[in-house]
């Protein structure tokens, strides 16, 4: 059977060597997991930045974030540009907010761009990943920090904690945030982890197919920093799958040791409904399976549908909602001639 070819390849009779994977994860966690406080000496980071001769851009992707965007810009600009010259630019990449997000961001000193006005010849797509991809063209930094704009307890360590490992280890390409630490309780150690989608979907998938990536405490966290040289070589899903794709693509190119993760303590943000998480999961699955097909040579992998079906009921009426979710992707940005021209690449 056609199905057997890919199915047997990825569900082999013999498991991969569990001990090897565990050793790898244990070693990586020891050497590549940090706490933001390890980078709180900002003068040291500024010096490291000069030594690496790099510029750093902070990108805040937005869609209707007027309640939180002002505080993020004020704190990060004051502490990491005005007081300590760590960041070279702060820009808001907006998806077309209908509230006053853009006006507020501009009034507090951020560069504000409408994603639809960047690379117009490439067309307009809607999604956070689209903004992140276009930020690569719009912003000039050698290192890009992405921070979600809905954080109510923003602190400077959200940015310097992410960029710190990249400045202190030139071999790292990508640093991911996580927020909770395992708490030692009287009864033992409480399992620390990500949100619902991470624990129910992504971690089981990684455990099955890419077990080393389970080393990330929160693979879907929206805050990360990466070198341009890495980001420009990978495609960007425009929607829910962008974080998953980053991990899989960079892992495929450079392996686990290209990554680090940083504990940023607490992050307070909006909670999402289960239906919204269902949509997110659907998009992530598309991204994941497309990588699985490509990286593991699953030529016989079946096609999948792009309609998510959810239910709602009112009184005694049961209704199925059909939501079309196409996890469209942008190509590696260095494939664009306009990008190569702008950044002086042959």
């Amino acid at each position, binding site marked *: 059977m056609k199905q057997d070819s890919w199915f047997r390849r990825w569900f082999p009779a013999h498991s991969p060597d569990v001990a090897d994977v565990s050793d790898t994860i244990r070693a990586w966690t020891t050497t590549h997991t940090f706490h933001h406080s390890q980078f709180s000496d900002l003068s040291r980071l500024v010096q490291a930045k000069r030594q690496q001769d790099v510029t750093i851009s902070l990108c805040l992707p937005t869609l209707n974030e007027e309640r939180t965007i*002002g505080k993020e810009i*004020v704190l990060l*600009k004051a502490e990491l540009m*005005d*007081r300590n010259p760590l960041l070279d630019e702060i820009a808001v990449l907006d998806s077309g907010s209908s509230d006053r997000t853009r006006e507020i961001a501009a*009034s507090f*000193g951020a560069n504000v761009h409408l994603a639809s006005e960047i690379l117009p010849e490439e067309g307009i797509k809607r999604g956070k990943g689209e903004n992140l991809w276009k930020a690569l063209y719009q912003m000039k930094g050698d290192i890009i920090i992405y921070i979600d704009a809905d954080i*109510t*307890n923003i602190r400077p360590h959200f940015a310097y904690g992410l960029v710190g490992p990249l400045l202190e280890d030139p071999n790292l390409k990508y640093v991911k945030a996580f927020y909770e630490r395992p708490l030692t309780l009287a009864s033992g150690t409480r399992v620390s982890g990500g949100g619902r989608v991470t624990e129910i979907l992504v971690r089981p998938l990684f455990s099955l197919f890419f077990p080393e990536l389970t080393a990330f405490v929160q693979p879907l966290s929206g805050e990360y920093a990466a070198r341009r040289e890495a980001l420009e070589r990978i495609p960007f899903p425009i929607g829910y799958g962008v974080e998953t794709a980053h991990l899989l693509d960079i892992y495929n190119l450079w392996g686990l040791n290209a990554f680090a993760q940083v504990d940023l303590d607490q992050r307070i943000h909006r909670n999402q409904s289960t239906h919204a998480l269902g949509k997110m999961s659907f998009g992530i699955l598309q991204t994941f399976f497309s990588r699985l097909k490509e990286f593991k040579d699953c030529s016989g992998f079946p096609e999948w549908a792009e309609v998510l079906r959810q239910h709602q009921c009112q009184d005694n009426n049961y209704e199925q909602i059909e939501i079309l979710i196409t996890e469209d992707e942008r190509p590696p940005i260095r494939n664009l001639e306009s990008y190569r021209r702008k950044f002086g690449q042959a």
Partner: protein
Amino acid sequence: METLAQILEHFPAWLKAALDARSLFMSDLVMLGEIPSPTYGEAPRIEFILNRFFEAGLDRCSTDTKGNGIGFLPGTHGRQTILVAAHADTLVTDCKDQSIEIRENRMIGPFVGDNCIALAALTHLPTLLQNLQVRLKSNVILLASTRALGRGNLEGIRHFLTHGNIRCDSGLCLESVQLGRMNYACMGMMRAEIHCQLPDPYNWAQFGATGTIIPVADVVMRISRIPLPKRPLTTIIMGRLNGGIAHNNIAREVTLGFEIRSESGDILRELKERIEDIAEETSAQSGTRITLDILSQRDPGGLDIGHPLVKKGRSVLSALGIPPLLYPTTSQLSALRDAGIPGLTIGITTGERRNDLDEIDESVAIEPMTTGLTQLVGILAAMDEGVTA
């Protein structure tokens, strides 16, 4: 420094410089404002403030035995010393969410108006003076004082003034709001609680047993019938009433919190005696135990409106187009007055308490902050020449 007229000429440039550095000021405001700091629990916030003092290069950054945060900015001559003080504590101890929002024109959150902006002005002042290239002849002591509110009763600043090893020649007390206030005199004030408790044993089975609420209501009624003079101005504020657990249970204990304010110390003492009598009499009549607990007490006094320091302050406000709000205060100024130090209390911006959300959620305007900071530097520069002429 320069004459007052020369100082006023700098204001357009100072306003622009204050606006340019606004992010630093607001960042300090958010970060220190989100650190819980109830009276007697100010240490984490004071630590943040001291770090800022260190970063700004102040001398002798330290805390004293009351936990006050102190920074010293030496003057070029150092013959005089000006104290700039803001209280670091907040009234409420169990605020669950102390996050501050920055909107387009306003900042919203618990205690932003009491007293986060004033504290941010304190931490921002050394940077601002440096940016404005203002070098004062006088030493400046920056004091983030502890234990000011409630039972604290200005314990922090009083301790500093009586135990500090530098004599302050003049003082400026900072409050977040309202911009334009120019408090040169102190109201007499007595803040107290009346506790009403059921005695042991209490006959719970007796039909018609009223518990503690009715006696306290009686006390409230009798206090409200006391005639209060308009000259000297005297008021009684009934601020809090706590007690009981459910509709159908007799309340075992009720606490009434109130404050008397008067321009006359004699009237203050007379009112205290009358309220003691009311409490005692009601206690006897109701068979409950009623006690009067004085939390804090301050005598009236202060500068005359014609004092040179008040005149200088008013000139600065006038040059900035701010109508002065001249009224007596119950703030930290009374500690300066008690120590014989001429001083003023000023506000940094405009704001209000947001009753639609929560009694501790406050909203302050962003735009006037630069004017408020310029006012602060202007008054300091004016005080630099001395406050007696």
